[in-house]
């Protein structure tokens, strides 16, 4: 450890250490001593400044998080403050519950399908927007709208768009001759799922596009020019140059999308309330229904806990991307 060599007892910023070492060669010994004590105090000051925020996060994210796990092993109900331990019973109950299994399937389905679509659409859109363009700033501004709008309000707009009597989607499909009868978007399980996935894609793809665009502009121009000069075709450039270089950025966009889609409650809750015939529930909406509306906190917590593996995987991958960038940069 260079820190030890410099005589500093606690780890300090990498650059700072390098700087100090370089200086220590030139500057006289007393200066080194004075700087070291200052660094010591700074470290203490740093902890002091960090402590309140860390405490808040630990108390109000860490503790509830732990409680989420504990509650899932209890028969706790809202209304009372008791905490009856029941072991794995909640998990046995939901494992045998076809509705839970459906919710688990739906969550996976909605997340995977929407994120695949988001990835394809975002890469395509970013390539298009990169190539064309007059008014790119304006388009980018518009593309951010779906991401910026509160999801509950967007969900209401879509509920109205897919309305059973006044749906503009149906009107348009009929007007161009693609539809003869009528589609009851929230009355049919398949249609309801399509509607939900549409909203998720609509919400995430523009944001992913903006991220991918930012990633593209960071690819050194020489690389792409060299590829063009060497006569690489569009597809070859796409698959062998742009996509590999964009992979970390696309990964981040997708991971973010996975988190926001798999854990989202508002879209399903507002569009279908889990209906028709409880066919579109996801883990989040089922946890809400059982845990809050049904007052069975324990079971709600157990259901929500099934989101945890997804989040852990996402967090690990995120850290990987960040670390790779750190090492590479």
């Amino acid at each position, binding site marked *: 450890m260079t820190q030890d060599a410099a005589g500093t007892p606690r780890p300090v910023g990498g650059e700072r250490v390098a700087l100090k070492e370089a200086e220590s060669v030139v500057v006289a010994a007393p200066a080194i001593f004075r700087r070291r004590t200052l660094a010591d105090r700074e470290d203490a000051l740093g902890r002091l400044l960090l402590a309140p925020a860390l405490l808040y996060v630990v108390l109000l994210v860490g503790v509830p998080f732990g409680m989420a796990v504990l509650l899932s092993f209890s028969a706790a109900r809202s209304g009372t403050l008791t905490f009856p331990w029941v072991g794995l019973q909640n998990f046995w109950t939901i494992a045998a519950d076809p509705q839970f299994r459906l919710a688990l399937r739906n969550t996976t389905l909605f997340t995977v399908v929407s994120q695949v679509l988001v990835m394809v659409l975002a890469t395509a859109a970013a390539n298009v927007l990169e190539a064309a363009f007059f008014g790119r700033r304006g388009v980018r501004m518009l593309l951010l709208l779906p991401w910026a709008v509160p999801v509950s309000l967007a969900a209401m*707009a879509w509920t109205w768009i897919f309305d059973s009597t006044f749906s503009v989607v149906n009107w348009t499909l009929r007007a161009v001759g693609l539809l003869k009868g009528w589609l009851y978007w929230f009355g049919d399980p398949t249609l309801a799922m399509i509607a939900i996935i549409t909203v998720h894609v609509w919400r995430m793809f523009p944001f992913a596009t903006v991220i991918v665009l930012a990633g593209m502009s960071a690819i050194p121009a020489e690389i792409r020019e060299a590829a063009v000069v060497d006569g690489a075709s569009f597809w070859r450039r796409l698959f062998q140059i742009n996509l590999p270089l964009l992979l970390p*950025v696309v990964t981040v966009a997708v991971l973010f999308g996975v988190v926001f889609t798999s854990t989202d409650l508002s879209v399903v809750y507002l569009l279908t309330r889990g209906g028709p015939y409880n066919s579109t529930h996801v883990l989040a909406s089922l946890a809400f229904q059982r845990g809050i509306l049904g007052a069975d906190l324990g079971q709600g917590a157990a259901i929500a806990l099934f989101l945890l593996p997804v989040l852990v995987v996402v967090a690990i991958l995120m850290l990987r991307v960040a670390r790779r960038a750190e090492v590479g940069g």
Partner: protein
Amino acid sequence: MKRRLVRAAKRVGLYGAALTFTVFAVFPFYWMFLTAFKQDRDLYVGGTVTTHIPWIFNDPPTLEHVQLLFRQTLYPTWVRNTVWIGGLVVLITLIFALPAGYALARLTGRWGERLGIGIFLTYLIPPTLLFIPFSRVIAVLGLQNSPWALVLVYPTFTIPFCTWLLMGFFRSIPRDIEEQAMIDGYSRLSAMRKVVLPLAISGILTAAIFAFTLVMQDFVYALTFISSVGKMTVSLGIPVALVRGDVFYWGSLMAAALITSVPIAIVYNLFIDRFIAGLTAGAVKG
């Protein structure tokens, strides 16, 4: 000649594709706009009537729905609730996140960088995982159906987010400036207060505004903790309470959605570059 034609066709294709993507993204907002200003007889025409085109104003636009929204619904109350809850949350957030962001940027070095990523990751822990334990915490504290529950809970995502945002801002201020101030005799703390803080003011403003928009976007916590219509925030009240019996006030509802979304959209556009830069945390090498 042929080559030029091909090029023109490609160009048209590109613009066509760009237009399609944009239309898909914007269409719900256009729909909010149309609905908000259409007269009822223009609005409530069944989708089977092919002669009536829903995409345009068939009758002159009206302010009826907007007036109804402001005069006869609780929308103004929800806006007021959102503003004071949001304001308090922003204040709490800054009190906690400012020192933390500074410490992570300057004082704790490489170890701090890890911690910075860690703090950002807590922002990714979704309300879905926490709303059930929180409902117990809120019950223990006796804050059921109280806006104070939201004031307590919202900082759990605004603090991590803003700490990480502010960390980026403080990093962008050259160290030399404050080191110079310290050589000139300022202590670390007064250098922070008198030199760094004024320079970071735009960053602090960004963090404050983002924290406020995050508050506006929450639906899950508000839905879980608040049951009285008069205590709701905009993003809960609009979807849940603008209903008459079983019938939504679609005109007013879309007007409310539009009025609420526009300021957030503007804010996001102003600060998106910084947001993305931090989000991709080095995945994009600038």
